[in-house]
């Protein structure tokens, strides 16, 4: 099926098999491998991307069902070679170990900060409740998101 997708601001016309998930189209067709294939069942959050600004598990949505939508993957966070404040904060806080969850954590956190620039610690936890980290770096991840929120608000001043 021929579909149009806008991914990280770039328009694509693709011919996809109708039973392929958005995740596999991003990875195999567009070579955007920041969204990871882990549980393939919407349980772990490693494949999280933004669809029209909302965090979605890209393994639970068919690519055809995302047609004509604006998609943002973790590759879309850095601008002009500069890391997004969330990415910088993840590095500063050591919020990455194996890194498998990071793409999903970062996009889920971006969905939160776009909607709520001043989240509480509990709101950060709630926003990341669909993302598992098996290295168990949750405290560092939460600290990093709160830190990035501070940075982003500073940038706006």
């Amino acid at each position, binding site marked *: 099926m021929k579909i149009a997708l806008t991914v990280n601001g770039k328009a694509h016309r693709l011919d996809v098999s109708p039973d392929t998930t958005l995740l596999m189209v991003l990875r195999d067709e567009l070579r955007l491998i920041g969204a990871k294939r882990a549980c393939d069942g919407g349980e772990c959050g490693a494949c999280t991307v933004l669809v029209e600004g*909302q965090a979605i*598990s890209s393994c639970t949505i068919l690519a055809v069902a995302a047609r004509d939508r604006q998609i943002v993957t973790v590759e879309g966070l850095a601008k002009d070679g500069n890391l997004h404040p969330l990415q910088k904060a993840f590095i500063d806080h050591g919020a990455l170990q194996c890194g498998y969850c990071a793409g999903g954590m970062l996009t889920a956190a971006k969905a939160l900060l776009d909607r709520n620039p001043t989240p509480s610690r509990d709101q950060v936890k709630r926003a990341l409740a669909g993302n598992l980290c098996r290295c168990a770096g949750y405290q560092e991840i939460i600290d990093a998101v709160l830190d990035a929120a501070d940075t982003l608000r500073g940038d706006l001043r």
Partner: protein
Amino acid sequence: MREAFEYLIPSCVDEAIVLRRQIGERGCFIAGGTEIVPRMNRGEFAPIGLVELSRLQELCVLDHEDGGHGGLRIGAMITHAEVERSPLTKGPWQALSDASSSIRSPQAINQGTIGGNIVFGVPSADLVPPFLALEANLRLKGANGERRLPLRDFLVGPYRNQLQDGEVLIEVRLSKADENFASAFCKAAKYRGLGLAIASVAAALTLREGRVHDVRIAIGAATPVPRRIAEAEAFLEGKVPDERVLREAGHLVAAAAEPREDSIRASPFYKRKVLVPLTERAVASAAARSRAQSSEGNK
């Protein structure tokens, strides 16, 4: 079979019904996809075709009937996120947003739909106990036209309902609520009340002069299909919801539950045990909300 797979995009509900009948029983409607797509990924489900419902405007209505004065209409393709955020699902119908926001992952809240939650028919479906307590009616449409059915008659068994082949759930309708009518939903789950329900309780009632009236209690994940618990409702009617009364209502709910021996989430013993505080909290919370609404109304 893979090469034969078709994804069909109708432009209206009537066309969806026609397409669904054309592909036959090995085809399926798809809503948000949070249940169907993982099962396809695992190879457990291999339909020959899917008919998309998620973008049909007729199924995306969330509004009051009769220009804002009547009950509530919730289209089948309204997402949990929309229920969670909408000002319309607060006040008397707050149990709905309690339930939608109790789903663990924001990703599933953003993608999952009310219609999918009802039609898929998992015994732990979070929206079903609140809708039962709110006496929801369903509007269904098929090749032979429209019909309406109370939700309690729609659910037949785990993963089984009254939908006929090719029939679509259009919307859920709630009657206009009496003044001071209030509702609440409580569930036990692994992580702070988030995630798949071990057991859940929805309560709806009206508090008048400190006594609860028109009490409705429905439970989830502790019976083959979520259902109302008449014994507890009759016991509570007209009573002051003090600690002793709430506890007794909780015990009546626990006694009426029929938890499955082989449930993977909790033993029948545990489910019965946890239904007591869940009932106490749901009824107390609905009563507190009713009291708050009446004091607001009197200002």
